[in-house]
């Protein structure tokens, strides 16, 4: 009987304890409740504020924490490893439960997702103005919706033409109608000096069967099977130019020759998907020319059975190993080379790499060559942004953290530690950026980059944009048929997703 009462008593007191803790004091609901301290130029920290940062790079996080501690020693900051693409889904569940990070890094196309779900804190005009003054315009336009800012830009990235200097130097110049391209000695001068048109480059690659000649420098270092100085058939496939074909993001530039922009000139008008435009048709026709073909026989990709076959492993990974001469990719491809392949080559004495060789002696980055109507191809740019959780307990402290993350010292770390291009308007503030040819190459193309759409329909455009190419290559449709089918796919997706 005594045991019984004890158990009962414990149960009762537990329940009472739980219900008595009550709700935490809530300090701010919306931007109006932030408390600004004009003298210090920051927000008033809440008492006992503690912050959590969600990011996915350990070295960067440690640096941020160290710098934050130096500036605000009273406010503990810790970080959790959450991949930036995973934050959206995680936050939808953790946020309302009170477990979400206060500030997090996300790619800018997650902004639309989280904003629609109502999880992003709307910035005060004061902060929005501050950010607009110091950041690149193309980077902060994606964070705006109806004139209000929902996130702060951190770094920008876009794709460009990556090329292997050692190989290109060896290859003879291509025929081109470009006025300056006639007197180039080799392909490297044409590509680096922007003396060749994109169509001519492709035609040239197609004429050469998209293969490397057997006597390129360091052939034995590049390929596994080089017998008698002859590179094996199996490996010498599509080695002049290869990129991720089964991907809308990488193939978007080739639709833009005559001015097509998905969702209108601002990339944010849901009524203007317009894949059936004449501009698109002519652009594809010029780009595919006589050389793109279809699965029955392509001059550009001889032996390619289906577009799906050419993925990362077959194109960019081979470029990183030095097997492919040119590819269209982004800064992420370079990171791997720095971490994996370059040290290995140095160690094993391959590719002529010595102590003094720099990365940019072997690899180069430049803007994608112009079309033959002197128009630069438009690529998508991606912006990494930092957002604030609307379920945070310390909005003032979190806002200060966001302001801190866009400050100069952190932007410098973004470049030095993360290797990404900071989104600052004035890149001379970042030491080393001006002298880095690889980053400069990406920056060249970034002038012609538009941010990915930040509307809900942006999630549904990828498959139709990719399928235009699949229908042409795999299903052997004509360009118009492919366009029509893509447009109807897009409509079906919208209906099914709940847009009525």
């Amino acid at each position: 009987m005594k045991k019984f009462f004890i158990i009962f008593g414990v149960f009762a007191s537990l329940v009472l304890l739980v219900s008595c803790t009550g709700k935490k004091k809530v300090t701010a609901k919306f931007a109006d409740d932030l408390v600004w301290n004009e003298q210090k130029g920051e927000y008033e920290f809440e008492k006992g504020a503690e912050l959590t940062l969600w990011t996915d790079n350990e070295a960067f996080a440690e640096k941020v924490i160290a710098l934050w501690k130096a500036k605000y020693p009273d406010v503990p900051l810790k970080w959790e490893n959450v991949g930036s693409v995973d934050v959206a889904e995680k936050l939808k569940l953790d946020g309302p439960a009170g477990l979400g990070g206060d500030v997090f890094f996300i790619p800018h196309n997650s902004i639309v997702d989280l904003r629609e779900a109502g999880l992003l804190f709307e910035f005060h005009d004061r902060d929005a103005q501050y950010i607009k003054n110091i950041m690149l315009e193309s980077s902060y336009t994606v964070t705006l919706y109806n004139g209000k800012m929902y996130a702060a830009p951190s770094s920008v990235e876009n794709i460009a033409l990556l090329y292997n200097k050692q190989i290109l130097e060896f290859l003879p110049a291509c025929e081109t109608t470009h006025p300056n391209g006639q007197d180039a000695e080799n392909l490297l001068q044409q590509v680096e000096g922007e003396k060749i048109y994109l169509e001519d480059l492709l035609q040239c690659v197609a004429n050469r069967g998209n293969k490397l000649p057997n006597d390129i420098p360091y052939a034995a270092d590049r390929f596994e099977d080089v017998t008698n100085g002859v590179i094996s058939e199996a490996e010498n496939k599509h080695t002049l130019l290869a990129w991720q074909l089964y991907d809308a993001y990488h193939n978007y530039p080739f639709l833009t020759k005559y001015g097509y922009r998905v969702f209108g000139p601002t990339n944010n008008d849901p009524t203007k998907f317009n894949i059936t435009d004449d501009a698109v048709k002519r652009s594809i026709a010029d780009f595919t020319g006589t050389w793109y073909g279809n699965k029955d026989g392509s001059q550009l990709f001889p032996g390619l059975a289906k577009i799906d076959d050419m993925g990362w492993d077959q194109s960019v990974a081979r470029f990183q190993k030095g097997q492919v001469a040119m590819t269209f990719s982004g800064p992420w491809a370079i990171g791997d080379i720095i971490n994996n392949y370059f040290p290995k080559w140095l160690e094993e004495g391959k590719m002529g790499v010595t102590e003094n060789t720099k990365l940019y002696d072997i690899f180069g980055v430049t803007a994608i060559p112009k079309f033959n109507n002197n128009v630069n191809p438009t690529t998508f740019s991606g912006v990494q942004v930092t957002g604030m959780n609307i379920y945070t307990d310390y909005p003032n402290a979190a806002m200060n953290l966001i302001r801190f993350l866009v400050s100069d010292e952190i932007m410098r770390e973004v470049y030095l530690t993360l290797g990404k291009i900071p989104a600052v308007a004035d890149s001379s503030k970042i030491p080393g950026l001006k002298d880095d040819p690889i980053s400069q190459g990406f920056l060249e193309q970034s002038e012609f980059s538009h941010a990915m759409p930040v509307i809900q329909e942006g999630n549904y455009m990828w498959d139709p944009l990719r399928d235009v190419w699949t229908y042409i290559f795999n299903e052997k449709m004509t360009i118009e048929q492919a366009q029509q089918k893509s447009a109807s796919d897009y409509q079906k997706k919208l209906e099914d997703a709940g847009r009525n």
Partner: protein
Amino acid sequence: MLRHLYVLILIKHIWSDVNMHSVNKHKKWWQKIIGDKMTLSGALSFFIMGLGQFRNRQIAKGLFFFGIQFIYVLFEIMTSSLVSEVIPGQPKAWGYGFFRKGLWGIYTLGESTGGRFRDNSTMLMIEGLIAIMLLLVYLFFWIYNIKDANNIHLRYLETGQRQTSKEFLDELFEKSFAYVIIGPALILLMLISIMPILFGLLIAFTNYDAYHLTPANLLDWVGFENFKKLFTYTRWKNTFIGVTLWTVSWATLATFTTFFGGLFLAIIVNNKYVAFKRFWRTILIIPWAIPGMISLLVFSNFFNQTYGPLNQMLGKSIPWLNEPMHARATLLIVNFWLGVPYFMMLMSGLLTSFDKTLYEAAKVDGATNTQIFWRITFPILFTQVLPLLVMSFAHNFNNFGAVFFLTNGGPRNINYEYAGHTDLLISWIYKMTVDFKMYNMASVMSFVIFLIIGTISVFNFSRTKAFKEEF
């Protein structure tokens, strides 16, 4: 006066006597729940739990039941606006106690939006489910309280004896020990396991999709709208039927190929003429030892039509993963490679446990090897392995990894809604939720999968010996 009273008591005794003779079989349904007859004790317990027990002179039990009611009411009051903090301007319903808010929430799914300080439909649904579950527990105790009050009182009328609380407790621990011990675990299970499942099921009856994300939007109950969509819209219907047919045939084929493959290998390795048995077994189990995800990713490159080493070795261009039928065959082959070691080890173990005398007797009778296999080995093996086969079927039915990492749903099917030729129901659901955020349709699909697998599993287990012996 006294004579009248005496007659009344006599009648009452006869009445209860008669009632006691009407054995359990003739009890009405309500009698089974609240006891043979509603007595004053029961009526008292109806309103305040434990009062009836006090009347029955069972103080401790009365306190127990009263305590439960007290806790629930206290909880409700402490979480309501009478005691808890109130945020100025909050919706009226936020001031209700936990249970009332839960019921309100699950009925209306919220009435105002605004992020943190307004209604969040999914949170309301979860809290509502928890409230309902706790109320069910309360209901159980309440009914038990009434029944107990009635029964004890009737027993007193019959036997004139009153059982003390202690004696009652002893009797309870003796007769229904199992139920008492499992009780707390059951409650916990209900909150941790069953509540999420019900939540997932309830989503199927709402309009939770990409254009209705919480907390910026409120959800609405749409009834059977989604089910109707799945079964009547032509595109959805075709996709659903196609994918289901493939899933069922895939599960059957995968299970049987791996089973017979494993059996075959086990018999060969077990044969008395084979040397270095351990060596062969070690090699054959390696596919199972390597993480499946990695093997599958490597295989997807291996079978690449243009660049894959296999096509280069063969010198042909076979569309292993690019044509529908080829992709399905390749998937089965790769799954065979991955799954055979499991069955091989299983069969090896079973085979070695066989009674050797059977074989000797068969040999004496002049049976050939084939006859021995099909008439002795196989039948015994099969009955023992059948439950495992069914479990393997269920596992393959939901074998997300194999499909996702090898083909990602396989060659595209233009006629399907977001599904490819090798998509299973489960990978189709994954695409719908992660890529397109169609949570409500995915929930409908999950429910269908649950029905199929659940039926098979229940059918299977009800036929196993263990189940039959128990019941």
